[in-house]
């Protein structure tokens, strides 16, 4: 192309390039602003995002109000100064007293700074050489105040090996750990099924006895053709309810747990709720998977919010629930996603 024509074309094209550049910059800016707006909307629906739990004041003296709940992020510092993530305006603690960090396996790791002292469940530490860990329900004693840790559902951690559940003084077993391995879960499941069988047999025996009592009380005593007396007692025993007999109702040795209808292969290291044995007999509380489509990762930022995610359908203000509710939620979540995935 001759240079003269090229100059004319190039000088005309500079406006085209400027237009495209302005368009690109404008779209970048709109994209950035849109993502920010989307994120703000989602964060409003997740007021506890980034927090793992709360520190509830059990005894705060004059400085802290009893019952106050202080949210805890995944990592931060604790101290008297307002710059801390967890600010405790207590006289006997330092501006920066302690550093904490959530550990998925151990719990909330607490490292007091040099010369600072904290106590967790009665165990005291000074300095950052030897950290302490807090789990759900642990008590923190600091500067004369006492706080208790409440972890949100989904952030429960396994107990440390030194704190595995053992029988107490009376020999009664303590609560099972919140998180189990596959073998432990299989044992727990077998125990649960055995207990359910025992309960069912006991109930059936009691029903049979109640029916027998009712039949004996309504039917007139009659003799058999052979003249033998009726096998039923002449009068019904006076009882208001079930009276356990001295003899065992069931024979525990005869119990044999049913084998699985199909072998289930676990692909993940930490499965808590394996899928049901039979696909024709799903978990009775599992919702229709098509009713709640899971948003794709790329749609998480790009698309507008679903109208169903209104304030009325939004989750409660705090994601904290009790242990039973969290267990039920985890079961439903597992079955809803066909076996779930690796827990974080």
């Amino acid at each position, binding site marked *: 192309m001759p240079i003269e024509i090229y100059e004319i074309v190039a000088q005309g094209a500079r406006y085209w390039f400027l237009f495209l*550049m302005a368009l690109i910059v404008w779209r970048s800016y709109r994209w950035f602003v849109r993502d920010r707006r989307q994120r703000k909307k989602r964060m409003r629906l997740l007021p506890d995002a980034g927090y793992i739990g709360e520190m509830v004041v059990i005894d705060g003296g004059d400085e802290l109000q009893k019952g106050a709940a202080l949210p805890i992020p995944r990592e931060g510092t604790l101290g008297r100064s307002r710059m801390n993530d967890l600010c405790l305006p207590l006289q006997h603690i330092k501006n920066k007293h302690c550093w904490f*960090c959530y550990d998925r396996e151990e719990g909330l790791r607490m490292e007091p700074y040099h010369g600072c002292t904290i106590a967790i469940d009665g165990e005291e530490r000074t300095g950052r050489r030897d950290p302490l860990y807090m789990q759900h329900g642990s008590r923190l004693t600091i500067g004369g105040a006492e706080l208790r840790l409440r972890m949100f559902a989904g952030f429960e951690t396994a107990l440390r090996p030194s704190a595995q559940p053992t029988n107490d003084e009376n020999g009664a077993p303590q609560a099972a750990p919140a998180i189990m391995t596959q073998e432990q879960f299989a044992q727990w499941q077998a125990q649960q099924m055995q207990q359910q069988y025992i309960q069912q047999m006991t109930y059936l025996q009691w029903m049979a006895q109640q029916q027998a009592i009712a039949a004996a009380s309504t039917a007139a005593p009659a003799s058999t053709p052979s003249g033998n007396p009726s096998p039923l007692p002449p009068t019904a025993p006076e009882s208001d309810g079930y009276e356990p007999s001295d003899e065992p109702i069931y024979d525990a040795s005869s119990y044999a747990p049913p084998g699985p209808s199909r072998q289930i292969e676990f692909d993940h290291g930490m499965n808590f709720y394996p899928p049901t044995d039979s696909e024709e007999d799903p978990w009775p509380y599992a919702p229709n998977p098509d009713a709640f489509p899971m948003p794709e990762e790329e749609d998480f930022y*790009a698309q507008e919010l679903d109208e169903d995610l209104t304030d009325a359908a939004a989750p409660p203000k705090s994601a904290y629930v009790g242990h039973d509710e969290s267990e039920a939620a985890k079961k439903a979540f597992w079955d809803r996603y066909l076996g779930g995935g690796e827990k974080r």
Partner: protein
Amino acid sequence: MSKRQAYEAYRKERQDKRRPDRRMCSAMMLFFFSGFLLISLKNEIAWQGLALSIVVPALIYVATMWLPRFFPADKLLLSIANFLCALGVLILYSTDLDGGTSRGIQQAMYYGVGILVMLFCIMLVRYIRRWSFFIYVIMFGAALLLALPLAIGTEQNGATNWINIGGTSLQPSEIVKLALLLVLSYFMSRNRLLPWLLFALFSLGVLMLQKDLGTALIYYFTALFMYYAATGNLLMTGFGLVGAAGASVAGYMMFAHVKKRVAIWRNPWMYYETSGYQIVQMLMAIASGGLFGVGLGLGSPRVIPVYFTDCIFAVICEQFGIIFGVLVLVMYVIMILRGTSIATSARHSFHGLLALGATSMLGIQTFVIIGGVLKLIPLTGVTMPFVSYGGTSMVSCMGLIGLLQGVDSLNRDDLSYDYEISRSLQETADLPDADNR
């Protein structure tokens, strides 16, 4: 399909077509297709240019739309980085035609290497959870690499910060930037002052010995910024700023070339034919471009000394205009704002500091080079991120983007986990009763 499902499918289809990444990618592809096509028709038909007019838009499409499917990546950051890299390739190629050089093609190859480094950095941040061992390896390795030019380095443009390995020149200080960020983030997040302070002081000392004052400036202010973000200690940060000013005065007194640079900056016209020639030519190039530029492939960029590294912004302003130059700066600003947003959303202080450090490093480098070109501050020898010619510079800039995207991917994982927890609780409340199933 129920009515609701049909409506949802229709809405999704409409939104797919208007997705911001698709619209931006299409604009970028059109820009570079028309740019390379135009430049290839300048003299005789340049088949290389025609090939680049197809290859570069295709690379942009692959890097922006396909890559995030396999690796977690922030598409906006990726798009902006891709655009700036491709802009550098276009500008360098447009100057190659008259000079017979091949910097544009080489820059395109460096861009490919940069993509790989970016992916590596994403995986590094995403999958390494325990840094306690690696950080010491990185620290000592970086210190060794940084000190290498003092032993076997070659001098370029007054600074002894290059080494030759197998015929390839390498600038270790660019690579050590990534190590510096990791080391500072790790030890600052654990509130351990001594290790990072020693490493930073060692790096600064070595750079001063190599006379690479521009990189030393970037290192210092990045460390100061990260220190303030980690501790919030305004007093010490103020001391740091005062210290920087004092060091600048001391450098001015001690080093002759610093005095010369300051004198040129104050009045380049006095040294027009000698040491001020570069700055004068840059200012004249920007002025001759005007608001809309002289046109792609026109002008006299080769008159500017070292136009392909330090002064590439002046070439952009000459060919595309000052308005275009301002829009390029706006792109950098959007990138920095996005990086800051990623840093503030991080759940761990290590990741937050890493993202903030990467963002501040990009921002400081951009300010230093643009300020030097526009004569706001004395010109230093740093490169313009993503645009300037240079393999090591491209690799380090893409590495910074990779660190940012690694942190962003972790942020999104955390947020989606919070979302799943709240949704499972919500669905529990909506589940039917056992009797109604």
